[in-house]
């Protein structure tokens, strides 16, 4: 018996399931085993369709803003939670609540709040701030979806960032204050670089989740532009173009992979600073002095 055989149950099933799904979707995207026969037309048709690019733009926009918003909001909360606060457990529990609300339900709740005759509009009308209700549901830019992504994903970012921030020794933060760092310098030069691995994980996972979002986009998303998942869904179920749907699916996967690499590459330089400050020759000169 070889030891690597022990890996089979876990790794094997992942490889098998991923592999077979990937195989199927790839086969489907070129129309293999269909009556019309294999063809690259599904790819060229889909990739030349402006609707796809509008969807890519929309999905990228909402997921970039959604994931950035979630981590930007999570950082100060995580910093605050580092301090001893009364009722900390209750606060943390409350902050995690959005994780327990399914996306679809959350989307409906938001729509109810911001709809034409929703709580927000009625309140503003009653207060006399506006004369007629605002049309802000299903906005073209995708702000509602961004808001939902931030709301839903902040607790997740908070879990990752909190554990990373809490693992920084308080001596290290004391040392930075002792050496004259302001609160902002302390955050940007010590806390932020030390939490890069957790930030990468949070950004990648939230971004990929948001890129493939269906629930928020289908309820609160724009009526003019589809998100990639919604487009894929309609392509397959409304137009019965399963091959093109498969192409869109692969586009989502490729975009996810690329974004993961991009996020890692973009954040990595912030993690360590080892660039030489002075050269060996400078040291020699000052030694002679």
């Amino acid at each position, binding site marked *: 018996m070889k030891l690597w055989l022990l890996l089979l149950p876990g790794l094997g099933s992942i490889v098998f399931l991923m592999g077979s799904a990937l195989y199927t979707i790839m086969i489907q995207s070129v129309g293999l085993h269909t009556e019309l026969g294999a063809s690259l037309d599904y790819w060229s048709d889909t990739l030349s369709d402006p609707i796809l690019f509008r969807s890519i733009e929309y999905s990228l926009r909402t997921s970039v803003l959604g994931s950035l918003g979630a981590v930007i909001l999570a950082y100060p909360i995580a910093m605050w939670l580092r301090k001893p606060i009364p009722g900390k457990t209750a606060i943390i529990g409350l902050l995690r609540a959005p994780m327990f609300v399914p996306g679809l339900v959350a989307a409906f709740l938001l729509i109810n709040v911001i709809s034409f005759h929703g709580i927000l509009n009625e309140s503003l009308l009653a207060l006399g701030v506006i004369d007629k209700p605002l049309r802000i549901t299903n906005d073209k830019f995708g702000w509602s979806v961004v808001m939902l992504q931030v709301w839903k994903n902040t607790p997740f970012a908070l879990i990752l960032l909190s554990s990373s921030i809490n693992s920084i020794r308080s001596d290290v933060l004391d*040392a930075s*204050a*002792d*050496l004259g*760092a302001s609160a902002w310098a302390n955050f940007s030069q010590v806390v932020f670089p*030390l939490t890069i691995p957790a930030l990468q994980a949070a950004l990648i996972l939230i971004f990929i989740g948001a890129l493939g979002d269906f629930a928020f986009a289908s309820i609160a998303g724009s009526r003019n532009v589809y998100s990639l998942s919604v487009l894929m869904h309609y392509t397959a179920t409304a137009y019965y173009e399963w091959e093109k749907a498969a192409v869109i699916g692969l586009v989502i996967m490729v975009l996810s992979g690329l974004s993961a690499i991009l996020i890692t590459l973009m954040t990595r330089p912030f993690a360590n600073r080892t*660039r030489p400050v002075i050269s060996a020759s400078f040291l020699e000169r000052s030694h002679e002095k």
Partner: protein
Amino acid sequence: MLQIKNLKKHFEDYLATDDISFEAKEGEFVTLLGPSGCGKTTLLKMIGGFHKPDSGEIWINNERVDHLRPENRSTAMCFQSYALFPHLSVSHNICFGLAQKKLAANLQKDYLAEALLQVGLVPHKDKLPSQLSGGQQQRVALARAMVMRPDVILFDEPLSNLDAKLRESVRFEIKSLQKKHKLTTVYVTHDQAEALAMSDKIIVLNAGRIEQEGSPESIYYRPKNRFVADFIGAANIHKAKVTKLEQAHHYQVSCELGDLIVESEEPPVSDYVYICWRPESAYRAQGEVENTFNIKVENLAFLGNVTDLFGRTLAMNDGESVRIQLDKLLHTQVGKSESFVIPKNAIRFLEEVDE
């Protein structure tokens, strides 16, 4: 110059420092010495600004600083854990404080070069802390604090994570850098050897209070009470009844060891006091000499440079344990009775026995 005035701090129901006052002159090396939980680190952290005192004042160079945040005080601290920034190279770690001060880049480079040469870290200048040994990390922490040219430099048990050999060499390094730059230093330790070797002044703390303050020699040779005598080095302590003799500064004491003569410029505080003497003060008796006493040898340990002997006095009720250190090899056996002499000027009066 650093002045501490009536500093008090408590954590919930635990009094960490109780009305502590002392002074460190410019360039003076002051050590806060005491067992763990005596409040020495709390005191240091109040000077650094990490803890806010309940009451009292902290003055640095005639400016009151106890309301200032750590980043606004001219203090620099060397932490017990070193507290290096794990994501910055040695050079960036050392320059961190200089960059916060917004010092010109060329000056930063000069300071950095000087610091690297001083602590011998030139070959490691671009390594991350995780790639360094404990001793090297300690030197980075030292350099990082030194380049700040602080008015007061604070050390929190900086050598406690180093092995014994390295501890001695870093001890000398710290002392020589401190002398060279005339840095006013407050050094916290529980290691009496470290305190004796490095300090200009030692402050012995116990349970949040100052037990004694003075030069290493005076603390060692003239302890004020049992706590100090016992904490600094080893000490034999006995209860004794004192009678004044006619000769000036001479007393007769009767204690577990028998009747002894004591010569002391300081008179005892009462007729019934504790007395103490150092294990290395006694020597083996040859012939009938003043201050001879007998003990039964219970344990012998040969330590190379000294022989550590533990014995018991020959009194009725079990006797008292006595420790003697001899610098010569002693030919005796466990269970044998031996005679020793304590010089009369080696016995010191401590506080009154209150019973």
